[in-house]
C-alpha cells in the first residue's frame, strides 16, 4: 500500500515543482553565467547569519535562487528582492553586471554605514530601488539622478548610530527622475537642502512623497505654485519647519488624500486654503505650535477619516462643525488649550473609534445619552480635563472600549461598576477621578482580564485579602485599601500599592507558588502597615529591578538572598525596624543606583565593598547605628549625587578623596542621569531628604540634587579642602560632629551651594571672605563653633538672621548685635592660608624669632652696655674654666693609676 502511494505521489511532486520553476523561468535555459558569477561575488561580500542565501550555489541555476527572478524569455536577472534577508556586509560592485536589473530591494539588511555605491546610477533599467532601513551612510550619490526609468525610490536608515548618517547636499539630481511616482526618505539628513520643494516639485508624476525625520527646515512657504499636482500622499513628519502652513499645498486640490505634517514646529493657524484639499481623508497636524481656534471650516473636509490636531496650542472651543465629518474614525485634540463645553454635534460622529480630547481645559458634564450613537468607540481619552462623567452605575454603554483614559476627570464619588460591561477593555486609567467608594469584589474578578489598571489617587476602599491580581501593570497606590496583601499572578510586572493600609506579613504574598516564573519588575508597598520579617525567596523574583518597602513595620535582618536580585536598581527599606548589618551579598547587585536604608537599627561598619557598586547614585544610611570610619572606598562611587550618612556613630576623619564624586564636582546634570535608574516616567524615584533642615520629598527633580550629609556623628579632624572642589554640591551638612580647624578658604568656589550647615563643631578661625561669593545660599548655619572676627559682608550673608551665627563668642558684625572693634579688625588683617595649618606654622616661626631676639639681646645687650656686669660675667666664666681644669686633671690621674693596677693583676 505504502509503496503504491509513493509511486503516485512522486511524479505528482515532480510535476508541481517543474510548474513552479516554469512560472518564474519557463525556459530550460540556465541563467547567464556572467550574472551568476556577479551574484555569487555579490553574495561573498556578505555574511549571512540567517542563511537566507543558502540556495545560492554555483552548481544551481541562479534563476531559481532565493530572491532572484529572471526574465521569462531572455533568462536575464530582472528582479532581486533580498528584503529582510538579514545580510551584513558591503555592497559589491559585481552587481553592476546585472544590466537588465529592473527591481532591486535590499531593505532591512545591514550595510554597516557604508555609502550607497555610485555605480547604481548607471543601472539604467532600474525602475524600483529600495535601500531603506539598510544602514547605508554618507552622501547619497547624485548619480542616482541618471536612473531616468525609476518609479520608486526608497532610502533611509535603520541604525542611525553609524556615522556619518545618510545625507544629501541637495536634491537637484532628483528632478531628473522624471517618471518617479514614489519617493520615500527616512532619517536622511537633508538640512543642507533649502530648496527641496523646488527640486521635487518638477516631478509631475510623483504620487507619494514621504520625507520623514529628514532635518528639513523650510517648506518654501512663499512658493505659490508647485508642479507635483498628482500627489496623493504627502508626509513630512518630524522635520523642523517653523513657519506657517504654506499656501502651495492648496495646489494639490484634486489629488491629495493624506497630509501628515506631525511633529514639526509649524506656527500660525490652519489657513482657509486647506478646504481646497477637498478629497483629503487624513489630516495630521499634531505636535506643532499651531495657535488660535480650530477653524469651523475644517468641517467642510467631508472625506476626513483621521483628524489629529493634538499637542498644539489651539484655544477656544471645539468647533461644532466637526460634527459634519461623519466619516471620521479618529479624532485627536489631545494636549491643547481648548476650553468651553463639548459641542453636541460631536456625539453624532457615529463612525468614531478614537476620541481623544484629554489634557485641555474643557468643562462639561457628560452623561449616558451622549454616547448613544458612538457604538464603534474603542478608545476614549478625557484625562486631565474638567469634564464630569456622570452615568448610572448600571449603565450598559453601546460601545466596547479597548482603552479608557480618564485620569483627573471627575468620575466619582461612586465606583463606576458599569465598567464591568466592557469585556474587551485592556487599559483602564481612572486615577485621580474623585472616587470615594468601595470597589466591589466582582470588579476584581472582571479586572483580571485587563492588561493595565490604574486606580491610584482616589479614596477607593475594600479588603483585598482574597483578591487575585493578574494585570501587567497595577497601580492602586494612594487609596484606602485594607486587609492582607492580595494574591499575584506571574504576569504582574509593575505593582504599586503604596500609601494604603495593607497589613500583615509579605512573605506569603511574595513567596507564594506561582504557575510560572514571576515577571515582577517594580514593587512599591511603601507607606502601609506591613510587618514581620522580609521574605527569603528573592531568588524566585529575579526580574525585580525596583523595590520599595519603606515606611512599614518590618523587622529582623535584611536577608542575604536579596543579593540574588542581580538586576536591582533601586532598593528602599527606609523607616522600618530592620536590624543586623548590611548583607555582604548586596555587593553583587552591581546595577544598584539607589540604596535607602535610613531609619532602621542597622549596625556595624559602612562596608568597604560599597565602592564596588559603581552605578550607585544615591546612598542613604541616615539614622542607623553604623560605627567606625567612613571607608575611603566610598570615594570610588564617582556617580554619587546623594550621600547621607548622618545620625549614626561614625568616627574618624572625613575622607579627603570626596572630590572623586565627579557628578558632584560638575555643575551640569547630564540629561540621561536617571534614564537607567528610573523604572519609567510613571514610576519616578522619590526620596525624602533633609536638605534644608526639614524633610522634603524630591521626586522628578531628584536627579538635580547634589547632597553630602555627614551630620550628627563623631567625626573629627578638619574639613578637607578637597570638599570645596565639589562645585556642583547644593546641600552640605557636617554639623554636630567634632570637627576642628578652619572653613576651607576656597569654599566660595562652591557656587551651587544652597544650604551650608557647619554648626555645633569646634571649627575656628575667621569666616572666609569668599563665603560672600555664594549668591545662591539660602540657608547657612555656622552657630556653636569657635569662629572669630568679622562676618564677611554680602547680600546673602546679611540676609540670614543671627541664629545662623550665634554661639561664636568672638564673632562680630551684622546680623549679630555685637559690633566689631579695632581688635577684631586687626586680627582680620592677617592673610589666612588654606586650612589654617600654614598660618599656625607662621605664628610658630614668628614667635620663635621674637623669642630668640628677646633672649639674645636681653643678655648680650646688657653685657655690652653695662661695664661691671661684663667684668663680673667674664670673671665668672674664667672661674668656671679653672675649676673644670683642676677637676679634670685629678680625675685623669686617678683613672691612670687604676688602669695600671688592673693590667698588672
Amino acid at each position: 500500500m505504502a509503496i503504491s502511494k509513493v509511486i503516485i505521489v512522486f511524479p505528482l511532486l515532480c510535476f508541481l515543482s517543474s510548474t513552479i520553476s516554469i512560472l518564474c523561468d519557463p525556459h530550460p535555459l540556465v541563467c547567464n553565467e556572467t550574472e551568476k558569477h556577479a551574484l555569487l561575488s555579490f553574495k561573498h561580500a556578505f555574511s549571512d547569519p540567517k542563511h537566507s542565501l543558502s540556495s545560492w550555489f554555483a552548481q544551481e541555476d541562479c534563476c531559481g535562487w532565493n530572491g532572484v527572478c529572471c526574465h521569462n524569455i531572455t533568462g536575464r536577472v530582472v528582479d532581486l528582492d533580498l528584503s529582510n534577508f538579514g545580510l551584513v556586509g558591503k555592497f559589491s560592485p559585481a552587481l553592476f553586471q546585472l544590466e537588465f536589473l529592473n527591481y532591486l530591494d535590499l531593505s532591512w539588511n545591514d550595510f554597516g554605514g557604508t555609502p550607497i555605491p555610485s555605480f547604481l546610477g548607471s543601472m539604467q533599467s532600474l525602475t524600483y530601488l529600495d535601500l531603506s532601513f539598510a544602514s547605508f551612510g554618507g552622501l547619497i550619490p547624485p548619480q542616482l539622478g541618471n536612473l531616468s526609468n525609476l518609479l520608486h525610490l526608497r532610502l533611509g536608515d535603520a541604525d542611525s548610530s553609524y556615522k556619518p548618517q545618510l545625507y544629501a547636499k541637495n536634491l537637484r539630481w532628483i528632478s531628473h527622475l522624471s517618471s518617479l511616482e514614489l519617493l520615500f526618505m527616512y532619517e536622511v539628513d537633508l538640512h543642507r537642502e533649502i530648496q527641496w520643494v523646488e527640486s521635487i516639485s518638477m516631478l509631475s508624476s510623483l504620487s507619494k512623497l514621504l520625507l520623514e525625520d529628514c532635518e528639513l527646515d523650510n517648506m518654501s512657504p512663499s512658493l505659490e505654485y508647485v508642479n507635483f499636482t498628482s500627489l496623493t500622499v504627502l508626509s513630512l513628519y518630524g522635520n523642523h519647519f517653523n513657519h506657517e502652513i504654506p499656501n502651495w499645498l492648496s495646489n494639490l486640490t484634486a489629488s491629495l488624500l493624506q497630509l501628515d505634517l506631525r511633529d514639526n514646529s509649524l506656527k500660525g493657524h490652519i489657513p482657509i486654503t486647506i478646504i481646497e484639499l477637498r478629497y483629503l481623508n487624513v489630516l495630521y497636524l499634531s505636535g506643532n505650535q499651531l495657535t488660535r481656534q480650530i477653524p469651523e471650516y475644517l468641517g467642510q473636509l467631508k472625506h476626513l477619516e483621521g483628524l489629529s490636531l493634538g499637542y498644539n496650542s489651539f484655544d477656544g472651543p471645539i468647533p461644532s462643525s466637526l460634527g459634519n465629518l461623519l466619516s471620521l474614525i479618529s479624532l485627536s485634540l489631545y494636549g491643547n488649550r481648548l476650553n468651553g463645553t463639548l459641542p453636541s454635534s460631536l456625539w453624532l460622529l457615529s463612525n468614531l473609534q478614537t476620541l481623544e480630547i484629554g489634557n485641555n481645559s474643557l468643562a462639561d458634564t457628560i452623561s449616558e445619552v451622549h454616547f448613544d450613537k458612538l457604538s464603534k468607540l474603542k478608545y476614549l481619552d478625557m484625562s486631565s480635563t474638567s469634564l464630569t462623567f456622570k452615568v448610572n452605575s448600571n449603565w450598559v454603554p453601546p460601545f466596547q472600549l479597548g482603552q479608557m483614559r480618564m485620569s483627573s476627570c471627575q468620575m466619582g464619588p461612586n465606583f463606576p461598576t458599569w465598567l464591568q460591561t466592557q469585556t474587551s477593555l485592556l487599559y483602564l486609567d481612572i486615577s485621580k477621578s474623585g472616587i470615594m467608594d468601595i470597589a466591589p469584589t466582582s470588579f476584581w474578578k472582571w479586572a483580571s482580564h485587563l492588561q493595565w489598571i490604574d486606580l491610584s489617587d482616589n479614596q477607593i476602599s475594600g479588603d483585598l485579602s482574597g483578591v487575585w491580581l493578574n494585570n501587567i501593570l497595577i497601580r492602586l497606590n494612594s487609596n484606602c485599601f485594607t486587609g492582607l496583601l492580595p494574591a499575584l499572578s506571574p504576569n504582574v510586572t509593575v505593582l504599586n500599592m503604596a500609601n494604603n493600609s495593607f497589613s500583615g506579613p509579605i512573605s506569603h504574598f511574595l513567596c507564594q507558588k506561582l504557575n510560572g516564573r514571576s515577571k515582577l519588575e517594580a514593587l512599591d508597598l511603601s507607606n502601609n502597615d506591613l510587618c514581620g520579617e522580609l521574605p527569603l525567596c528573592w531568588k524566585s523574583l529575579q526580574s525585580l529591578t525596583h523595590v520599595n518597602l519603606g515606611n512599614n513595620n518590618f523587622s529582623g535582618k535584611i536577608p542575604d538572598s536579596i543579593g540574588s536580585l542581580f538586576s536591582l536598581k533601586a532598593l528602599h527599606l527606609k523607616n522600618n525596624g530592620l536590624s543586623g548589618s548590611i548583607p555582604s551579598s548586596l555587593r553583587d547587585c552591581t546595577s544598584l543606583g539607589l540604596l535607602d536604608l535610613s531609619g532602621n537599627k542597622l549596625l556595624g561598619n559602612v562596608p568597604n565593598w560599597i565602592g564596588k557598586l559603581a552605578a550607585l547614585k544615591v546612598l542613604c544610611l541616615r539614622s542607623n547605628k553604623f560605627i567606625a570610619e567612613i571607608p575611603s572606598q566610598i570615594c570610588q562611587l564617582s556617580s554619587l549625587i546623594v550621600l547621607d550618612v548622618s545620625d549614626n556613630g561614625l568616627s574618624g576623619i572625613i575622607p579627603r578623596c570626596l572630590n572623586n564624586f565627579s557628578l558632584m564636582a560638575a555643575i551640569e546634570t547630564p540629561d540621561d542621569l536617571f534614564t537607567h535608574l528610573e523604572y519609567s516616567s510613571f514610576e519616578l524615584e522619590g526620596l525624602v531628604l533633609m536638605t534644608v533642615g526639614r524633610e522634603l520629598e524630591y521626586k522628578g527633580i531628584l536627579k538635580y540634587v547634589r547632597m553630602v550629609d555627614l551630620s550628627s556623628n563623631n567625626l573629627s579632624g578638619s574639613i578637607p579642602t578637597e570638599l570645596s572642589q565639589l562645585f556642583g554640591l547644593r546641600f552640605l551638612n557636617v554639623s554636630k560632629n567634632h570637627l576642628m580647624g578652619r572653613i576651607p578658604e576656597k569654599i566660595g568656589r562652591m557656587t551651587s551651594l544652597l544650604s551650608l550647615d557647619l554648626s555645633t563643631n569646634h571649627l575656628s578661625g575667621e569666616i572666609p571672605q569668599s563665603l560672600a561669593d555664594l549668591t545662591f545660599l539660602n540657608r547657612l548655619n555656622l552657630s556653636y563653633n569657635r569662629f572669630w572676627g568679622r562676618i564677611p559682608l554680602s547680600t546673602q550673608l546679611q540676609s540670614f538672621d543671627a541664629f545662623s551665627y550665634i554661639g561664636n563668642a568672638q564673632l562680630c558684625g551684622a546680623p549679630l548685635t555685637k559690633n566689631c572693634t579695632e581688635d577684631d579688625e586687626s586680627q582680620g588683617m592677617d592673610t589666612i592660608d588654606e586650612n589654617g595649618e600654614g598660618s599656625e606654622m607662621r605664628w610658630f616661626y614668628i614667635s620663635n624669632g621674637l623669642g630668640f631676639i628677646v633672649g639674645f639681646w636681653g643678655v648680650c645687650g646688657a653685657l655690652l652696655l653695662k661695664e661691671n656686669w661684663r667684668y663680673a660675667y667674664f670673671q665668672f666664666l674664667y672661674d668656671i674654666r679653672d675649676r673644670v681644669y683642676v677637676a679634670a686633671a685629678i680625675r685623669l690621674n686617678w683613672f691612670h693609676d687604676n688602669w695600671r693596677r688592673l693590667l698588672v693583676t
Partner: protein
Amino acid sequence: MSFWGSSVLDRAGVQTEDPISEYSLIWTVHSSGPGSHTVHNPPLPLRVHCRICPPLQGLFLSLQMESSTSVLCFLLPILLSLTSTLSTNSEGNALHALRSRLSDPTNVLQSWDPTLVNPCTWFHVTCDSNNRVIRLDLGNSNISGSLGPELGQLQHLQYLELYRNNFEGKIPKELGNLKNLISMDFYDNKFEGKIPKSIAKLKSLRFLRLNNNKLTGSIPRELATLSNLKVFDVSNNNLCGTIPVDGPFANFPMESFQNNRFSGPELQGLVPYDFGC
C-alpha cells in the same frame, strides 16, 4: 523588549483595522508628541492631588479612641478646608508663570517642575514649615527677562534676591502686596521705569537695593515712611528730583544716591518734591 515599549499597551494596540495603511502613515496618531516618535507613556498630570485619605484615617482612629464624635464633626470641615488650600499650589503657579517669562541659559531653574505639589523642593525657592514661599534667591544666575504681576501672589515672601542678572522691564507695582518682604535686591540689572510707590507698603522692608539699573523718575516720597529700612541704594540709575531727608533717609550715606540726576536733598516746603524731573 521591555514591557513599556511593548506594542500591546500602545494605543495602536486596540485598533482592529487600518483603513489607510500606507508606509509610515500610522492610523493611530494620538501618541505623537513633540520631539519624540517612540511609544509614549500617558502624559503626566499637571497637578498631583494631595493625599488626604490616610491622615483622615489617622484622625478617625485617634478620635475613636477618645470616642468623642462631636470633636470629629467639628474638626473634619477644618481639616478638609486645610487640605484643599494646600492642594491649590497658587505659589507654584505664580513662580512657574515667572519662569515662563525668563530666559535661563545656565539652567538655574531646571528643577522648577510645575507638576510637583508645591514649589518647596525647587532650588532657589525656600518655604517655611507651612510650605509657603519665604525666599527667592536668584542672584548672579545669568537670567534675563521681565518680572510680572504674578510675583505679587507670594504673600509670605521675605527675601527677593534677583541681583546681578539681566532682568529688564518695569518693577511690577504688585510687589507692593508682598507685605512680609524684608529684602528686595534688584541691583545690577536692567530694570527701567519708575520705582513703584507701592513699595512704600512694605513695612517690614530692611534692605532695598536698586542700584545699577536704568530706573527713571523720582524716589517715591512715601519710602520715607519705611521705618525699618536699614540699607537703601539707588546709585547709578537715571533718577531725578530731590532726595527725602526724613525717616530712615536721614541715615543713608551719599554713595547710595550718586550717579543720578538728583537735584539735591529735599528742602521741605521750599521746592516741589519732584523738582528737576
